[in-house]
């Protein structure tokens, strides 16, 4: 045989991953983003107005998961204990007693009644980034708000990506009338005024994060579908698909096993950008007051507060920083992914 010898190499996904990790900026951004997300998932342990663990009069309590009336700690009321109350604090500080508090002593809904300055309070030793105009700790609001944004974005992206891939795959693979009919539907659907619908819906239903997720997803899958459709239209006429058909392979298997892996490049590249878009959408709806219900920690609501309290610079500055950092991280990741999955770079690497 005169053909050059076979060079052992890894699969296409592995090589794309290697190219991605080779991009230091993008890879670091992903690491930082994942670390922040992981930290925010443990927000209850990091920022809460209840101690994680209490020893009082020889008994152990876990207030984080238990509801303890104030009488447990020698108080007068049967209401749940307010651990920020100086009276309770003093009781817990007695010899033999012990309380392990989270690093930040406030839950997102905790109102700091013991602040000495009017709300919104500037950064201090108690409230590291100050409080908002209702006396709630900004660090806690930002931490929980970040978590909500990221989880919301993940949810929207997952629903949109799955829906879009499925829709586009069916459209592109079967082509012809199926394609035309489904494409007309997309055209009509994408012409719907999303913002008006959201306003109308927020009048009909009580606002909730799930309603928002559903509404934003329902209008967000068309971009992915368009990419997947184009890729399927291209791939369905390639010989490897014909060969699979000639073998008698079922349509479902051809779609998912043969064509789909070759169409995922644009889908994966879009994911970080879609997440950034979803965070932006949630923030702007909250900012307008059409978003999550009152009291939910939300970056958009904080931005609105910042706008209403221009002298409380710490609100807008901190929220702005968190929002921009999140979006920049996502976009850096998306940029690196796009480079890593660029077919031209893959080809250049394949050339011996």
């Amino acid at each position: 045989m005169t053909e050059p010898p076979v060079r052992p190499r890894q699969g296409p996904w592995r090589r794309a991953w290697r190219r991605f990790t080779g991009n230091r900026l993008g890879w670091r951004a992903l690491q930082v983003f994942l670390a922040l997300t992981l930290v925010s998932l443990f927000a209850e342990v990091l920022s809460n107005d209840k101690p994680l663990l209490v020893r009082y009069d020889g008994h152990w309590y876990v207030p984080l998961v238990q509801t303890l009336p104030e009488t447990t700690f020698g108080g007068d009321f049967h209401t749940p204990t307010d651990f920020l109350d100086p009276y309770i604090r003093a009781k817990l500080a007695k010899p033999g007693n012990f309380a392990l508090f989270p690093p930040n002593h406030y839950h997102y809904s905790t109102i700091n009644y013991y602040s000495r300055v009017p709300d919104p309070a500037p950064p201090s030793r108690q409230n590291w980034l100050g409080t908002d105009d209702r006396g709630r700790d900004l660090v806690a609001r930002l931490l929980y708000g970040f978590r909500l944004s990221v989880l919301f974005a993940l949810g929207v992206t997952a629903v949109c990506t799955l829906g879009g891939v499925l829709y586009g795959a069916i459209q592109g693979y079967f082509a012809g009338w199926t394609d035309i009919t489904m494409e007309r539907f997309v055209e009509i659907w994408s012409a719907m005024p999303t913002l008006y619908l959201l306003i109308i819906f927020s009048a009909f239903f009580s606002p909730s994060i799930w309603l928002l997720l559903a509404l934003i997803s329902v209008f967000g899958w068309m971009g992915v579908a368009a990419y997947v459709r184009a890729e399927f239209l291209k791939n369905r006429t390639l010989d490897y698909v014909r060969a699979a058909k000639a073998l008698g392979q079922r349509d479902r298997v051809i779609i998912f096993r043969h064509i789909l892996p070759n169409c995922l490049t644009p889908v994966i590249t879009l994911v970080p950008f879609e997440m950034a878009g979803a965070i932006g959408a949630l923030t702007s709806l909250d900012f307008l007051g059409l978003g999550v219900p009152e009291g939910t920690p939300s970056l958009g609501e904080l931005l609105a507060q910042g706008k209403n309290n221009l002298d409380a610079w710490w609100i807008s500055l901190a929220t702005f920083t968190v929002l921009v950092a999140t979006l920049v991280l996502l976009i850096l990741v998306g940029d690196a992914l796009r480079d890593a999955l660029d077919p031209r770079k893959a080809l250049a690497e394949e050339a011996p």
Partner: protein
Amino acid sequence: MTLLQVQDLCVSFGGRRVVDRVSFTLDRGEKLALVGESGSGKTVTALATLRLHDAARLQGAVRFQGRDVLAMGPADLQALRGNEIAVIFQEPMTALNPVMTVGAQIMEALQLHKGLNRAQAREQAIAALRRVEVPEPERRVDSYPHQLSGGQRQRAMIAMALACDPKLLIADEPTTALDVSIRYQILDLLEKLRQERDLAVLMITHDLNLVRRFADRVAVMERGVLVEQGTMAQVMSAPVHPYTRKLIDSRCEREVGEPGQGCVLEGRSVRVVYPVPRPGIRGWFAKGSFTAVQGATFTLAPGETLGVIGESGSGKTSLALALLDLQKASGHIAVDGRAWVDLDAGGRRQLRRHIQVVFQDPFSSLSPRLTVEQIVGEGLAIHEPGLTRLQRRSRVLAALEDVGLGEDGPAGALLHRYPHEFSGGQRQRIAIARALVVQPRIVVLDEPTSSLDVTIQKQVLQLLAQLQRRHGLSYVLVTHDMDVVRAMAHRVLVMKDGRVVREGAVDQVLSEHLWEELGEPQAG
């Protein structure tokens, strides 16, 4: 008088040297053919004389009329390109700008290099098109590339290249993308123009038939090194370097067995019709139709090869797809006596096992993200779902060894590799293994060797002939390559414009007469 002198030219991309100390000269009015397989560096060498590779590092010397090209500044280089040295490329559809008319593209060079005004340039462009024998040049000058046929596009490319009266024409595979019947016309045109203007031609090609017909001298390249050069007669009749000898011997030999009795595949009045959009408002309500295959009738015996030949657009691939039931067709197509139309979906699936296919392009015919084991084993998973993993794997290994992939080492090492790790010839072997693993009776070969290098072509054809003898396979061989048909087929169908225009035993049909009918003169 020496026009172009290339001395110890080295070209490197990154750290990799793709052309290694190549030297040759070209005299005024001379025809030099630079021959080699893909990846041998012949195109890189030729384009380096114009410094058309931005990323390349060039060493050595290139002198055009005594001036050192490698030392030229940008202005001199621009004056050289197009004006004194012109290039025509393999694929005129991509080398021409699709959104500019042909005339505008020819005029651009004239206005740039000769400083003509629009009216003069247009006159000259029409004259240039007339010289390259484009019919109705006054009308064609305003045509867009897609409105011209492949041959006309290549003629327009030549007109564009020659508009400024260059002294040297670099022709990079000028006929490869064209139909056989047009190839020699283009070659004759180049020869006529060369004589008229005392033009030197540097022809880059892998097709030795073209070289025999066209060149004065030949230079053979292998892996970036110029291994042999000399006059055409000398190199062709007494090649010195083993690689040259191998290239010249790569003409396929006939080693096929005798066909058996019976009929495994039958087609009666097969007709394939495509819907095409109608222009204007009528297209909203009704579709026009284009008949790709019109009433083809044939039979195929066990162990027999039926060659289907014709130019592109003659309907041969549509016919092949119809046989595989991958394309809707009317008429009667029966595999092993069972007709596709009589069967339900399950019956068709079962029948597919008996008729398999190998496509032209081994780069697109293998799923890029599946491993060799998954690709070859897929047919088994469909048609013999009862096999255990180990049984399936051993069948896959047997198929890979059957197609000669076990020769460089144990075939087991190949199972977990992906298609991109293999060369073109190896991929084509994998595609053949995928077809054979389900033990079909018929294999449809759609241009099985057209995208392979000549030496690999010969190996693949030998393999196919061996497999036919070993397993008693019947082949339907779709190709435009007369040499391949001559080497492989027992009987031949000749198609033109969707009709079968000739049919019969291979030596009867491939006679003197057929060449005239297809418009291709007898080669070499």
